[in-house]
């Protein structure tokens, strides 16, 4: 289960809506207690995809390294990655799966006509062949 606190949730939704109609992306940091993850900070990162950013996102590994270091400095953990799907559902697409990493939760925010609509969290496997839905709790969910 992954729970996102109000502050980071607001930042993630605002980020997704501000970047619309393109896809946004970022890192989520917080604490892990067994299967319970709590996101206390969101870090907006650049989408560096060279293709159409309305349908693709790519993180710069160096930015992720920076997020990991920031988490360590705060005595927190890098828990997951978020990105948005403009004008479509918060499913884990084939593109998401083929470019994923099994170490993190992947939160997808659906943005319809510029406004947040719904979200899901996904846990991909190491072979990048399947992603399991993870229970996601956000402030207004």
């Amino acid at each position, binding site marked *: 289960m992954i729970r996102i606190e109000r502050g980071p949730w607001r930042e993630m939704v605002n980020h997704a809506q501000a970047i619309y109609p393109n896809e946004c992306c970022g890192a989520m940091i917080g604490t892990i207690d067994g299967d319970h993850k709590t996101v206390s900070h969101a870090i907006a990162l650049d989408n560096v995809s060279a293709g*159409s950013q309305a349908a*693709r996102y790519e993180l710069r590994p160096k930015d992720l390294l920076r997020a990991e270091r920031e988490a360590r400095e705060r005595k927190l953990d890098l828990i997951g990655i978020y990105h948005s799907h403009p004008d*479509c559902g918060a499913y884990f697409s084939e593109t998401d799966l083929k470019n994923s990493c099994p*170490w993190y939760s992947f939160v997808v925010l659906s943005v319809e006509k510029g406004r947040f609509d719904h979200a899901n969290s996904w846990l991909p496997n190491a072979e990048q062949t399947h992603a399991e839905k993870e229970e996601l709790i956000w402030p207004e969910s």
Partner: protein
Amino acid sequence: MARIMIPTPLRQFADKHDTVEMPGATVGEVLTGLTARFPDLKKHLYNDEGKLRSFVNVYLNDEDIRYMKKDATPVNDPDTLSIVPSIAGGRRV
């Protein structure tokens, strides 16, 4: 000797260490030492062919070793190795 920063999800396979000190003259030697000490880490970093998984990047301090000498990149005390995944995606199928 290098410090290896272990990402949170992999610490369970490294006796819960967040950082591991490992001797070695090159990145390859340090990583071999790491997976010899913590064998459970190996399948998370390497595929069945013994190559780093496609999403795994290794940084020596702030540089990606792919743009240095890869496994043969020399390591000096007190260098830091970080394991960083490649992540991308998008709604397009």
